[in-house]
């Protein structure tokens, strides 16, 4: 596609102002790069990065893009772990960073925020109003509110304890791919019954529109208690989770684990003594202090029946900060020692042990690479197993990195199909189209394509993600 970059810059400048349009290659490269382990290729590099301030400007960009048939890729903070953030074709990158105004309306029971606000900042602001932000990704320092809802990720949160963040969304202002600005949902704390277009856009991964304002119910900030438990083996933790669901025990808000190897790496990174075996850690929540203590004590009793090496409540906030840090940054700490190739396996809960065994088996017997280690951690109470192929060097050719990542993806998706899961954090398009086609009837994928075409006839937004382009 021939695009006159100077003219593009001039045209976009008319919409958002000259200072908010970048067509230099350094800026384009920086925005295109994501956490995918392989290098950018020429088709990933955007023509321009444009930074609108509001829905009107987003509308102007999308109308222009439709007239010129130039794809637009929406950018939050680029933290997706499955390539959602990397443009699949030369395009205009639409950066949401300037749309970050937040207004809290205690008297209305909700807050409104722009898509570009970072979660850590938003959490801080909400806590001043004694309110909880119901999403907990490891990347919250920089992950955006818009991206979170566009993927509807639970991250550390156990769905059965709190739900998905999208469950608390009351409505949006958003711009359709063809440039029309629409509003959805309600300003009441009572969500609509029946057909509510809000639901179509929650988790739509930027394929159906650009969120420009999000309205979310204010959730009272609960009390928290924390538990840490060590086990002889990871399998003991899996058994505990299976038992928790079987006995219908209300799950903790977080129920995380580090396997034997990940626990050593994580604890060492934060300066704690090396733990014995695998480690599980939980955050219990309740809306009263007494209720929270009661729940924590009951859960501790339940854990002790599972025969851990040790299980205890952590009252010291500084100790919890370190323990939690070992888990929250486990992915980054492991990456310091080499390369990691991840997966997201969310089996039916009674199949947890079998899925874990199969994950270990395929990761230790990859076709694309020999000599890697197996390492795992994750939101096991959800349940999510993040099983990793861990290579203790960064000196791996680009093509090999790609091959390992793709084999990991393909084989972990086979496990999701075999054991009835579909993921719960990383989204379903980008590199997961083959999974969608494999797991569901072909009409499911075809319906998504029709929906996309109905709203985005020129395939402007996030082109390539639904097609499965790399």
């Amino acid at each position, binding site marked *: 596609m021939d695009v006159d970059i100077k003219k593009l810059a001039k045209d976009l400048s008319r919409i958002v102002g000259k200072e908010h349009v*970048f067509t*230099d*290659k*350094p*800026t384009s*490269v*920086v*925005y295109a*790069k*994501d*956490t995918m382990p392989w290098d*950018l290729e020429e088709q990933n590099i955007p023509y321009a990065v444009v*930074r609108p301030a509001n829905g009107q400007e987003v509308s102007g960009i999308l109308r222009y893009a439709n007239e010129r048939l130039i794809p637009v890729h929406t950018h939050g*903070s*680029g*933290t997706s772990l499955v390539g959602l953030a990397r443009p699949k074709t030369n395009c205009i990158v639409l*950066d949401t*960073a*300037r749309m*970050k105004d937040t207004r809290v309306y205690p008297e209305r029971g909700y807050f409104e925020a722009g898509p*570009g606000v*970072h979660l*850590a*900042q938003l959490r801080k602001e909400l806590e001043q109003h004694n309110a909880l932000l119901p999403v907990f990704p490891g*990347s919250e*320092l*920089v992950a955006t509110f818009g991206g979170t809802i566009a993927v509807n990720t639970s991250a550390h949160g156990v769905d059965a304890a709190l739900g998905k963040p999208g469950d608390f969304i009351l409505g949006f202002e958003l711009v359709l791919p063809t440039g029309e600005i629409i509003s959805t949902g309600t300003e009441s704390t009572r969500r609509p019954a029946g057909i509510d277009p809000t639901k179509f856009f929650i988790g739509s991964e930027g394929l159906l529109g650009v969120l420009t304002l999000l309205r979310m119910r204010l959730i009272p900030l609960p009390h928290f208690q924390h538990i840490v438990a060590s086990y002889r083996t990871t399998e003991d933790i899996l058994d505990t989770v299976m038992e928790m669901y079987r006995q219908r025990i209300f799950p903790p808000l977080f129920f995380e684990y580090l396997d034997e190897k990940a626990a050593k790496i994580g604890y060492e990174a934060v300066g704690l003594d090396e733990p014995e075996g695998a480690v599980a850690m939980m955050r219990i929540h309740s809306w009263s202090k007494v209720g929270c203590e009661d729940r924590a004590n009951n859960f501790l009793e339940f854990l002790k029946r599972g025969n851990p090496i040790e299980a205890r409540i952590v009252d010291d906030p500084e100790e919890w900060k370190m323990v939690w*840090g070992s888990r929250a*940054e486990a992915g*980054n700490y492991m*990456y*310091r020692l080499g390369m990691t190739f991840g997966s997201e396996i969310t089996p039916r809960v009674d199949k947890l042990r079998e899925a874990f065994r199969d994950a270990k088996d395929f990761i230790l017997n990859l076709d694309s690479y020999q000599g890697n280690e197996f390492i795992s951690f994750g939101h096991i109470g959800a349940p999510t197993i993040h099983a990793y192929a861990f290579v203790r060097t*960064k000196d791996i050719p680009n093509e090999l990195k790609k091959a390992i990542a793709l084999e990991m993806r393909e084989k972990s998706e086979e496990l999701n199909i075999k054991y009835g899961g579909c993921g719960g954090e990383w989204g379903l398009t980008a590199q997961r189209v083959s999974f969608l086609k494999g797991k569901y009837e072909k009409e499911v994928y075809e319906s998504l394509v029709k929906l996309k075409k109905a709203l985005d006839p020129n395939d402007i937004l996030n082109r390539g993600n639904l097609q499965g382009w790399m």
Partner: protein
Amino acid sequence: MDVKRQEIADTLLREVAKCRACRFCVDMCSLYQATEGVESMAPYGRLQIIKCLLNGALDEDDPIVYSLYSCLQCGRCDGLCQAKGQNLEVSYLIRLGKYLLSHGLVKGGHDEKV
């Protein structure tokens, strides 16, 4: 290629390759804040630019100079990367990148592969 340049380039390429693009460092950066969140004006962006300059994916041009020289060397990104990221001395690496540029030791482009 002189020895010093090669030494700096090797150090930079080795260290910058460790950046995982987690972007945890961006919010700490005064320039990122001042530009309302332009990623090429953040520590993460500067590291990526140095990498692309050294591997020939980028040519030396004004935006590169502007991005690297806009770093105030406050070191806030260092603490963040050491605590949560890849334990890089980010501001030192940016300083090395600036040194290469200011001494005319790197021009970028496909003839600059090292």
